[in-house]
């Protein structure tokens, strides 16, 4: 009797998800939270009638895609940084896409040369300083973070976080590994506390007087201003776009790839085109204070107030290639240690 019950349940279980990914939809494996995608996907459905289905996880989606092979239901993978996109290419899980709309909407430096991924938004990794305790212009470059002057005054999240890894990768590209190691050691020596929490927590730490300077992505600040409980902390800091007068500020991208298996390829391409269109790009900018990848879209609101960013023109590919070197560097200087 119990066995029968279990068997029935098992059959019901396997049947359950089949209804969730019908043909004619578009299926997304996303490293970005589903609720952040919702406004975009709703707009897409309204325009085209195509429904989107999402699985969100921070780990394991590439492995799932790989193992599911040609039968994978996923059409699209969305990521929040370049190294995940590069992983997909290296594992040969995504396909080349030659598409005029995407090529027009996404500038060359923000997409894969063969169309294996396309950037949708950019985010600047900037320096936050205390309005009270740091003069305007006192720090203007990433390199200065290693100055003795900031001893015991810097807070960051873990050196191993992909956003920090990408920043360190860009430093390696510009200065070489040895010099970057020295720099990273300098930054570590200046830390006011062991790396912890997220980017918002560092801004809060400045407001609390734990430290005076932190590193963080630009959109976190924007999102903190929108939240009543976090606004006071955000208002205590000033934004510095580092190296603006030199090589430019380090940027990372959130991006999208078409999987090799893509059972709903036409729909997937439509979605990719839509996400790079002005309409969707504006949603990105206003909803999550990110920079549109599409150069024809003028950002509004807070992103516009920050003015034009001068981005580091370093190829994202190079940043992705330096990733493993950067990770090991973080271990060597024991950045996350006590």
């Amino acid at each position: 009797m119990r066995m029968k019950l279990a068997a029935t349940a098992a059959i019901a279980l396997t049947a359950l998800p089949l209804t969730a990914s019908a043909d004619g939809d578009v299926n997304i494996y996303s490293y970005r939270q589903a609720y952040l995608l919702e406004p975009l996907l709703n707009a897409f459905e309204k325009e085209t009638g195509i429904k989107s289905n999402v699985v969100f996880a921070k780990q394991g989606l590439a492995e799932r895609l790989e193992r599911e092979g040609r039968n994978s239901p996923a059409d699209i993978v969305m990521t929040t940084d370049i190294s995940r996109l590069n992983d997909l290419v290296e594992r040969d899980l995504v396909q080349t896409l030659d598409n005029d709309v995407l090529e027009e909407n996404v500038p060359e430096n923000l997409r894969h040369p063969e169309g294996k991924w396309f950037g949708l938004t950019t985010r600047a990794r900037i320096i936050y300083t205390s309005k009270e305790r740091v003069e305007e212009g006192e720090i203007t470059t990433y390199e200065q973070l290693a100055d003795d002057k900031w001893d015991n005054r810097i807070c960051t999240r873990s050196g191993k976080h992909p956003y920090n890894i990408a920043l360190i990768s860009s430093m390696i590209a510009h200065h070489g590994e040895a010099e970057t190691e020295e720099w990273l050691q300098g930054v570590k020596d200046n830390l006011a506390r062991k790396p912890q929490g997220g980017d918002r927590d560092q801004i809060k730490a400045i407001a609390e007087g734990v430290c005076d300077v932190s590193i963080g992505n630009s959109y976190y600040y924007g999102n903190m201003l929108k939240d009543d409980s976090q606004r006071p902390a955000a208002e205590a800091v000033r934004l510095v776009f580092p190296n603006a007068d030199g090589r430019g500020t380090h940027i990372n991208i959130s991006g999208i790839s078409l999987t090799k298996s893509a059972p709903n390829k036409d729909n997937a391409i439509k979605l990719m085109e839509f996400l790079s269109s002005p309409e969707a790009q504006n949603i990105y900018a206003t909803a999550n204070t990110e920079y549109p990848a599409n150069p024809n879209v003028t950002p509004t609101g807070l992103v516009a107030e920050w003015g034009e960013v001068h981005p580091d023109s370093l190829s994202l590919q190079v940043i992705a290639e330096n990733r493993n070197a950067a990770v090991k560097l973080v271990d060597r200087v024991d950045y996350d240690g006590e």
Partner: protein
Amino acid sequence: MSEAATSVNPGLTPPLLAKRTSRRWMISALLTTAIVALPVLSVIVLAFFPEENIWPHLIDTTLPRYLVTTIKLMIGVGIITLAIGLSSAWAVTMCEFPGRKFFEWAMLLPFAVPAYVIAYVYTSLLDYAGPVQGALRDWFGWANASEYWFPEIRSLEGATLMLGLVLYPYVYLLARAAFLDQSPSLFAVSRSLGHSALSTFFKVVLPIARPAVAVGLSLALMETLNDFGTVDFFAVQTLTAGLFDTWMNLGNLGGAAQIATTMLIFVVILVTLERYSRQRQQQFAARDNRDPIRRFTMSFPRQLICVAVCAVPVVFGFVIPGVTLGVYAWEYFDESWNPAFLHNTLNSLFLSGTAALTTLLIGITLAYSRRLHNTRGMQVLMRLSSLGYAMPGAVLAVGVIVPLAGFDNWLDNLMRDFFGVSTGLLLSGSAFAIVFAYTVRFLAVSAGSVESALQKVTPSMDMASRSLGNSPGKTLVKVHLPMLRGTLITAALVVFVDCMKELPATLILRPFNFETLATYVYQFASDERLYHSALPALIIVLAGIIPIILMSRSISNTRSMA
């Protein structure tokens, strides 16, 4: 004859086992174990194919710290769970004090709080902007963090406390069941021989309860070893942190699988050592002795101590987190209320319920097969089937994908070749995959408790039933299952609550647009929007309370029933 020679269990005499039925039990145990062991085996296979050899770099840099931190964390959590679990179980079982009946089940409440949720809550309470430090600043007139010292919650000590607070119920649960099971006459004899209550506890009560306590403690410690959410949030660098770093940042899944396998070996050694050290013990309760427990009547100060021993863990492990979540949920109700809640709750209940039932059935099959056929081989099978618990959930999820997607694609190729139709993915990406992962992960919980309970049933029961002409199956259904009713319900409910809280495997394996309460909480928490996740987090906790109350009642009933 050969069976008699290999049989370790002195109780069951082989002639009573009709060969065919015994073989049927063994084969079903073998098959089940083979299926359940697949994910762990997949991970072990992955470990043979690393992208690069990760060890020289690890040994040169972070490995020593990972190891030391992991061991410190495990020792700390071990001490806390033992101290709280044993003392409260003893107090509730053996002492008479006001509120005893209430604490009997209330001690289990922290079990309903996921470790990552309690970590979020205490961080928001104790960090600089939180109410505690705010009040202190107002009181003493401090201006900012540089003017005073306050313990850092995001630390090894903080993580130890958090995990200890939500994991001690494992020890409490099993210790209490074991104390209830002990014959009061043993205690009385020890006292009459001149031992004090305390020395009786350590010399008689604890050694008898040891198998159960060891199971509870090892569950708590394995959970600690595999925890990623809490240690990641607190920036405590354990081996699991190193594992995820190798996987996600270095893109070296094989290297990560090697770390996971190493952790697995570590766990196996620990568990084996514990078992080896009590290898020669064999206990059977004399079931006819069912004297009611005579609880100590105590002086008022002692009663107060008992109340404190029980109240403190419940207040810190449940009341404070629960109330805090309630307040946040109330304040952010408009932003966090979502009509999908009901749906997510049903998903959670359905998956957890199915997994609890499956796990229980498999647990019974394995434990009973071992009873019928107690060979080395069966023991190894038992251990093999429990390994899923010794692996981080996300790694196990990859181990689940490998065989399921492999099977799906094999079948699909076959169908394409022979019939020209594609069956696509049947198991991978289905709710079945999640239930399978839950079963593999939590089988250790049910199989372990069923096994230890079954061991205490004297073999003369089996012999009596079998000599009356009952088959092994009938004996199980008519004799053992009714006797073990309490244990079975408890095992199923523990698995149920564990499944409700499970996060990493669910995230990776779930179908499209599929949320459980835990994944729903996570998508906000992972975006640094803790407040928005308060309401669903509160629902997980509330949903966990009901099985906990049921669980506690079922344990008390086993005693009063007799």
